[in-house]
């Protein structure tokens, strides 16, 4: 299985450094990160706050550019892309899921799901049909006309998953997707993401502290002090569940 997957790299970071200037102080958020993410895998990025986890996560999601080094998405150097190409990439190649759901509060579930399709140039009718179908797939077929505040947290995150899948992306970038959900609802979202991975072959990259999330990950990347501390395969993870507990604290 891994043999086949290693043949196609979807995201690659090459010696990535990121330095933030906070007044007179320089913060070295990332210090030489080399990472390859393969198409169709479920990868989790772990690390304490301040470790550079978020920076790396934003980097592989095309939301931030490195100070030094390169990030390739689908073997295209992000630094070469102009604003129109970046917007296209975010619209078509990457689906985003946020800890705080980030549905547009003034829009119905369906309008939220169709928004990226509208950005992609679909007609209103095409987008509506596809949106209804996607909402059906995440189990919200009877909630299409509900506004976000009329939905529970889990339902909102389902809408967000449907929205992330709107333009059939190659990558889903999930930032603590279960962070604001209770245990069982979080589990449902994880199952949903796994199903999307299985059925659509989408690559899932998530930043998380959730142990449930770790156990379904193909690989876990541990970040510490702006560097990759270690990368673990799932097989090894299951054995070490006891130790993960400590490291997430």
């Amino acid at each position, binding site marked *: 299985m891994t043999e086949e997957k290693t043949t196609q790299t979807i995201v690659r970071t090459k010696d990535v450094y990121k330095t933030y200037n906070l007044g007179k102080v320089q913060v070295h958020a990332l210090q030489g990160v080399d990472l390859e993410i393969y198409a169709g895998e479920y990868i989790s990025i772990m690390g304490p706050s301040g470790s550079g986890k978020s920076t790396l996560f934003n980097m592989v999601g095309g*939301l931030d550019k490195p100070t030094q080094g390169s990030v390739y998405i689908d073997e295209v150097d992000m630094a070469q892309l102009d604003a129109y190409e970046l917007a*296209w990439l975010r619209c078509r190649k990457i689906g985003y899921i946020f800890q705080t759901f980030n549905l547009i509060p003034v829009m119905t579930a369906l309008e939220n799901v169709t928004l990226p399709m509208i*950005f992609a140039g679909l007609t209103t009718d095409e987008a509506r049909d596809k949106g209804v179908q996607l909402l059906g797939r995440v189990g919200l077929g009877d909630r299409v006309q509900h506004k976000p505040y009329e939905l529970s947290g889990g339902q909102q995150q389902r809408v967000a998953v449907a929205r992330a899948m709107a333009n059939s992306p190659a990558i889903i970038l999930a930032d603590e997707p279960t962070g604001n959900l209770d245990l069982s609802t979080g589990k449902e979202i994880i199952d949903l993401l796994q199903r999307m991975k299985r059925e659509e072959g989408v690559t899932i990259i998530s930043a998380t502290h959730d142990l449930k999330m770790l156990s379904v990950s193909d690989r876990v990347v541990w970040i510490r002090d702006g560097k990759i501390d270690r990368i673990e395969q799932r097989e090894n993870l299951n054995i070490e569940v006891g130790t993960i507990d400590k490291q997430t604290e």
Partner: protein
Amino acid sequence: MPGDGNERKQSIGRQIVLPFSKALEISLRGIRVRLWRSLITMSGVVLATAFVVSVLASGDVTRTVAADGSPAAVRALQEIGIDPSEMREVNATNAWLAVMSLMVCVVGIVMSMLMSVSERYREIGTMKCLGALDSFIVKIFLLESAFQGIIGSVIGAAIGLGVSFLSAQIHFGEILDGKWPVVAIFRNTGLVILVGSILAILAAIYPASLAARMEPAAAMRVEE
């Protein structure tokens, strides 16, 4: 391989610029949902234009009455404290008041648009993550402000016209029969509506560009 980046770059498309109607739809929805806030912003425009229109229209009326020159007209003017020989001074003061009130109105719009932008930071970041171009974000905010400006100026102009018509009726009633400076009043009113709408758009340029320049990663931030 990273080296053949240029070939693979073919696989990246360019985001299309959305039709104007989409921006229009989204900004209209924004106004509808934040109706109360919009109304408050709009009330600033309404008050300013109502004031300016009434000042200008009253000016037109008094000028007409002064030009009439009849003893009744002079008496009517003196009753409201205007010396027909000092019309020029009155006009200058009125123009100054009009400009000041429009300036205050612009500051009000800038403030409320800035608030609207900071309130929607995450929404804007999310839209950018979903593929919105900067120009689209700019359009949404400019349109929103333009609507508030246009609707507010029209309502304000109507109120201003009504008030100055009533006051002219009370003070000058018969003197004005058949002599209403209709053309001048409507020309000035049209001008005020135009200026009000343009100022509303100008006032939104800075907040809108602030919104458009925002990093999409802002959508990821949890605090708020």
